[in-house]
């Protein structure tokens, strides 16, 4: 299976353009975040409380006016109180994110066309695919919920991962090793990529929760806040971030489970056993167990707040170690990074 050099070249150029667009978007998100008021989006976020339901249901009877003054930040936000200039930065950031996303998709697609297979056969390709899932997830979330405040925090790891991918992890377009020539590559790796991208969003919301919770704790007792806790000013209530984290992880966990099972099915066909405690398998197991512990802690044992979020962060750390540590430090069956 020969490599199509034109597509491979196009893919490499699109990667650079994507990184530039995302980096610019990240800066603009940060500008809006740092200098803007909470903005329309965040003010709208304050409305998505159980009160909103009451308003809608009450349509037949007397409508209860939406409560706008009780935002947790101390009531600076009101409907439509947006400084137009900073909001323009935010809109520009979204525009650049969408442009970057299109080029990102093009980068992955042309890589796939160049090599005539699923474009996630080595670590570089995996990084490109997983970040595409993360950005897609963010954009989908953005179309349904006012989560523009997440922008800078999602873009930062995305730009870092893509940058690492384009430099340290980069390998030229090439066909696959025989062990990877299976339709399970499509299923297993795309599911892992999906799970990884979703958990990245869960990681971002976990970090934001910690910032916001610290901010709320300190302001509640009137203590001064310093950077980076000051970032918490413009975030939604900690409680809301905590629930968002749970929903994201609860959404990603079955996908992660299925991805691991698909991997076991593939391992049976390729290596003659469905589970053999290869380092990659071991860390997938560790990651899975930690996220399972998070779900138990959160939904059954009734832990809220920092304890559960700490477990979620640990899960993400294990996932990242599985991606980078195991591929680069430990040799095993999954030595497909293409790096030597």
């Amino acid at each position, binding site marked *: *299976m*020969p490599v199509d050099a034109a597509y491979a070249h196009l893919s490499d150029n699109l990667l650079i353009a994507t990184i530039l667009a995302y980096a610019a978007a990240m800066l603009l998100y940060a500008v809006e975040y740092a200098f803007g008021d909470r903005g329309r989006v965040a003010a709208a976020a304050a409305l*998505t409380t*159980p009160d*909103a*339901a*009451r308003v809608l*249901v*009450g*349509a*037949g*009877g007397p409508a209860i006016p939406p409560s706008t003054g009780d935002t947790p930040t101390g009531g600076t936000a009101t409907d439509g109180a947006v400084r137009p200039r900073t909001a323009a930065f935010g809109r520009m950031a979204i525009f650049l994110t969408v442009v970057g996303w299109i080029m990102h998709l093009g980068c992955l697609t042309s890589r796939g066309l160049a090599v005539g297979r699923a474009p996630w056969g080595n670590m570089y390709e995996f990084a490109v695919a997983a970040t595409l899932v993360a950005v897609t997830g963010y954009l989908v979330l953005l179309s349904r919920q006012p989560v523009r405040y997440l922008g800078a925090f999602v873009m930062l790891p995305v730009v870092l991962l893509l940058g690492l991918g384009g430099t340290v992890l980069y390998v030229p377009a*090439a*066909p696959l*090793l*025989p*062990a990877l*020539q*299976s339709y*399970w590559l499509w299923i297993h790796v795309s599911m892992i990529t999906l799970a990884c991208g979703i958990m990245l969003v869960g990681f971002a919301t976990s970090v934001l929760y910690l910032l916001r919770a610290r901010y709320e704790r300190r302001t509640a007792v009137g203590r001064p806040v310093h950077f980076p806790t000051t970032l918490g000013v413009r975030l939604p209530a900690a409680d809301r971030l905590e*629930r968002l984290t749970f*929903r994201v992880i*609860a959404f990603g*966990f*079955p996908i992660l*489970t*299925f991805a691991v*099972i698909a991997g*076991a*099915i*593939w391992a*049976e*066909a*390729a*290596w*003659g*056993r*469905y*589970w*053999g*405690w*290869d380092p990659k398998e*071991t*860390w997938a*197991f*560790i990651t899975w*167990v*930690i996220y399972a*512990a998070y*779900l*138990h*802690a959160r*939904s*059954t*044992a*009734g*832990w809220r707040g920092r304890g559960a979020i700490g477990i979620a962060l640990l899960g993400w750390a*294990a996932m990242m170690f599985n991606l980078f540590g*195991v591929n680069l430090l*430990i040799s095993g069956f999954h030595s497909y990074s293409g790096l030597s």
Partner: protein
Amino acid sequence: MTVLDRGAGDAGARLSTVPPGDAPGSAPPGPVPAGPLALLRRSWRQLTSMRTALLLLFLLAVAAVPGSVLPQRGLNQIKVDDYFAQHPHLAPVLDRLSLFDTFAAPWFAGIYLLLFVSLIGCLSSRVPQHGRALLRRPPDTPRHLDRLPQSAEFRTDAEVETVAASIHSGLRRARWRVERRAEADGAVTLSAEKGYLRETGNLLFHLALVVLLFAIAMGGLFGWKATVLVTEGDGFCDSVSSYDAFEPGRLVDGQHLPPFCVRLDDFTAGYVPGTSQPASFHARIRYAAGAAEPDRPYDLRVNSPLRTAGTRVYLLGHGFSPVITVTDPTGQVFSGPSAFLPADATLASTGAVKLPDARPKQIGLDGVFTPDRDPADRLGLRSLSPRPLDPGLSIRVYEGDLGLDSGAPQSVYSLDAGRIAAKRLRLAALADGRPARVVIGPGQSVRLADGTTVRFDGYREWARIQVGRDPGQVPALGSAAVMVLGLLLSLRVRRRRVWFRFSPAESAGGPRRTLVAAGGLARDDAEAFGPEFVRVVQSAQGGRSGAG
């Protein structure tokens, strides 16, 4: 259980699916009686509590870490040996802690067995509890619906009975479980509940996890696998003696393996043009499942194992067997392929040939086969690529006593280094007096001082084939599928309740005769329940024409 945002009260407590003793901060009720039985009961309660389960989950995750950091016997014995050589003091200590067999270690088994006991204990109370919940009718309507997290009110023109009947059937159609009750003051109430599948899925997931453990255990007890290295033209039959490595399950004796024979006709490795990257491995085999069975052909590839009734055959690796012909001074001819083991990705392979029947002295050869000889390497040890473009054989010829009769086991891939060091096996001399260490190509031969000739005829390829059975594999797959299903149900479905109270509106004339009050409560993910409650109330309202 502090789950609900506000005002959940009694109804909220009853909606909780957590076993009573498990709520945070709840102590075992009543005075604790003394005695062994009480202690036992208390330890059991402790073990099956969620906090213990969490702790065990964490322990399990931490316990798995050394298995990925330290070399493991099950994965690579050579690396374990290397580790022993590099850390002569540390390694035996780690070994005593079973850290080179982490996943078979007693402490690892201890953790997961405790976890499963805890799980089974938890299930044993929750399965009947859920069974009872399935049979129970939705609970009474709370007096103050407006104190629930979700609530709404509207009036409608129809009679109480008509409205109630219409909303009742509407809820039924939407697959709510509905209970109609009449209250003392003439009001009618509907209690509806939905989302039992959440707990069903939850229990299903955990039960499947237990089944999975049993399936894995079944594979460990009754399964077996064996690997064998087969050169083109050769074959093997299913008996322990024909295997290079045999890993039986704990209850497999190896004497009664099913009759099964495999022959390797041809092995081909394809490469990406212009590179040494492999693109395909392809073994053409013939197999017979049973003595009376005819041979059947099969194309064995990576990712495409042969699956016959119960037995599975996999292609795991490949390499080269140089064909070497040795003629000893008495005229005896020894000829055949010998499998050499690849040492690196270029398939430069090492191996040995042992001829205990050669006369006057036993002859041993060891050396390196290079599929693509590096012309710059005069020792002939390096290969440029794994493709057999320019094969070469770099060999040393030894004479003396191979020591095969001594009873000590030897590797077939190397000569006994101890005997070479002890000069019981000496490097032979060439006809011109130089030591017998040569690099030869296909068809070339070398003549020793004593008249022995060694000829490198060419090569054949070999394939490493794994044969095995795992009776737990299909049950494991089935339980894994049930696990995913259960997980999806338990994380996506919400358990929720809605109540309606229909009371005749006494007040102020006009057509609005019935007052409808509604309340809603979700045990999980209360935030997402809001919009659904709105829809339920809207459809209830919409179903009554003229309302609104």
